[in-house]
């Protein structure tokens, strides 16, 4: 697959603070690349530099094989952007807004009318097209924001945290829409700090912290970086101190926390972890209600790599 975006040694500083530090990345045609990182990790700055919205100190950015510049309108015509904050005209209707932003790329009236209808359908706003933004709920407003960014059917789409402060129904609708865009052939850069969305959507993930790439790969590749195998949660109404210390002696157990009737056990890499634990419960006649087992998440990977949570 061709590289749609090539970023080499990108550096951007705000006075003494390096927002992006010697960052290099490539985005392949047709993939959804997740840029994951906590607030202030440089996701949005990287995106703004790629889009020529910000001047950067050093580096090289090529999109569709050409150098990206503020006046590279041939490249811009193939790009769609959905910003984190809703960027629409309060004075125009839902249809008027999509028509306007689509009109920045598509001049032909008839083609544009069809594209606007397609965008309305994609985000599920067909019934709201004559409403003004102020009449929409937060979730619908976010959907409008997305429709304005993708109505012109771009080949490359930047989505900057499009699901922030969105209700679950709208979030599902948005995520389904993004999958459909990928299926229609678009390449997508998706920045977020919601690891669950990255796991659902992204083919490849880049984890950023302090403007640097600290890990990249597919979900499974990244999770393989984690030192833990799984996390087990057991509801245990009563547990004696001696019984609790016994858990720590089970093979591969790295951490045990008992709080408020809930026992949390973290396992290092290894096999038959659950079987050993069940045998211990039976042997010590420990009463329990429910048992949950979880695979490590990207948050665990981030925690191990940086010592802090993604949402810190």
């Amino acid at each position, binding site marked *: 697959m061709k590289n749609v975006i090539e970023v080499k040694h990108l550096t951007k500083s705000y006075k003494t603070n390096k927002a992006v530090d010697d960052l290099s990345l490539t985005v392949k045609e047709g993939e959804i690349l997740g840029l994951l990182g906590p607030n202030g990790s440089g996701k949005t700055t990287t995106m703004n530099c790629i*889009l*020529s*919205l910000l001047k950067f100190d050093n580096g090289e950015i090529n999109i569709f094989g050409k150098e990206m510049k*503020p*006046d590279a*309108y041939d490249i*811009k*015509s193939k*790009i769609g*952007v959905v*910003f984190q*904050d*809703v*960027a*629409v*005209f*309060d*004075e*125009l209707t839902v249809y*008027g807004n999509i*028509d*306007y*932003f689509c*009109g*920045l*790329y598509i*001049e032909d009236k008839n083609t544009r009318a069809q594209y606007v209808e397609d965008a309305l359908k994609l985000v599920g706003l067909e019934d709201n097209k004559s409403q003004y933004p102020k009449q929409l709920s937060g979730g619908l407003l976010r959907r409008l924001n997305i429709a*304005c*960014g993708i109505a012109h059917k771009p080949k490359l789409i930047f989505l900057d945290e499009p699901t922030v402060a969105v209700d679950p129904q709208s979030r599902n609708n948005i995520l389904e829409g993004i999958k459909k865009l990928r299926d229609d052939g678009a390449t997508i850069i998706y920045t977020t700090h919601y690891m669950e969305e990255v796991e659902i959507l992204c083919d490849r993930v880049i984890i950023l912290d302090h403007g640097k790439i600290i890990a990249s790969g597919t979900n499974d590749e990244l999770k393989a970086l984690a030192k833990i195998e799984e996390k087990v949660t057991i509801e245990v109404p009563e547990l004696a101190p001696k019984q609790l210390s016994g858990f720590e002696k089970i093979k591969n157990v790295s951490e045990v926390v008992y709080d408020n009737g809930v026992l949390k056990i973290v396992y290092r890499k290894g096999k038959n972890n659950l079987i050993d634990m069940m045998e211990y419960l039976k042997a010590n006649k420990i009463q329990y209600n429910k048992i949950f087992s979880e695979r490590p998440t990207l948050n665990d990977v981030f925690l191990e790599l940086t010592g802090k949570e993604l949402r810190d």
Partner: protein
Amino acid sequence: MIVSKAFWKIVLKNIGSIILPTVILLMFGTISVTSVDSTAQYEARKPALVIFNHDENVGLTKNFIEYLEENATIKTGYEDDDRLKDALFYEEVTAVIEIPENFHQDMALGHDPEVKMRSSAGYVAELAKVAVRRYLSVAKGYSALHLSEQELVAKVDKAIANGVKTEMKAAVDTSKYAKASRYYSFANYTILSCFITIICLIMSAFNREQVRKRNLVGAIDIKKMNRILLRNCCIYVLAAWVFYVVISVFVLGVEVVFTAQGALYAVNSLVFAACATTIAYLISIFALSAGAVNGLQNVLALGTSFLCGAFVPAEYLPDSVLAFAHVLPSYYYIDANDKIMKIQQFDAATMVPILLEIAVVAGFCVLFVALANIISKKRQRIA
């Protein structure tokens, strides 16, 4: 094309903000015209004067007062300044004349003692002013001959007796334009309201950070987009100005609008419209919310209209207010309207002050554009 379409959609969305000040202008214009007295009434009335004489009542001073008594009704009992201001406002008193100390001696010696005068609005006040100016200019002319005071009084009496009728006629012509002056001065409020509201709302909508970012990543040159916006703003401003001039034909009549003075009023208002546009452009850089724009528009349109004499004639405003008003373009626009009203003949003496005031308003345009560019560049650097 799509930018122009969005521009006019936003104008239509805010059409209410244009209609209200326009209706007020129409109402004011109509009421103003119907309330202006006819020429017949004018001739039947004499100005009501209050005289404060700080000189001895002898010689030329006595003659001056007798002349005023002949041509006006002298009123007394207005020693309290607040009462006097009220009387001027309600036109119980047409004008207040203060004769300075040593007036008769100074005039006889060929000096130019200052006779202070405050007046109400309207043609009767103009009549009073013309009468006073006439007497003083004649007296000053003869004083250069170094006559005795007795001879001076006799010469002035004779000259005044021959000349009064001519001045009366000129005063009638001035009153003809009083209604035009009121209409165009009131337009200060309408022009500022309509232009600031619409241009600020549109430019603020396009300058809103997120929308601006989305426009910047679009496949259209942002400079081209700004040119389209500017072109549409100019079309809007010109269309609105033409509309107000057309209204003036119905309100004031062709005999006023299609004259040299009428053209001057139109030119003055066009330059002021351009100035209002630049004010709106300057404000719009800050990308204010609709509420803030409406608030600011009220403060500017109403504030300048009160301060500069669009609603209340400048003569009634305190000196401190008028001194402050000098820093506002509205002051020069309204003052130019007053000067156009008083034109009796077109010569350098009457035209230069008017053109200068129009030039000052044009200068404000340049100042506001320069300020807007400086602030805009500074904000871009910060961003």
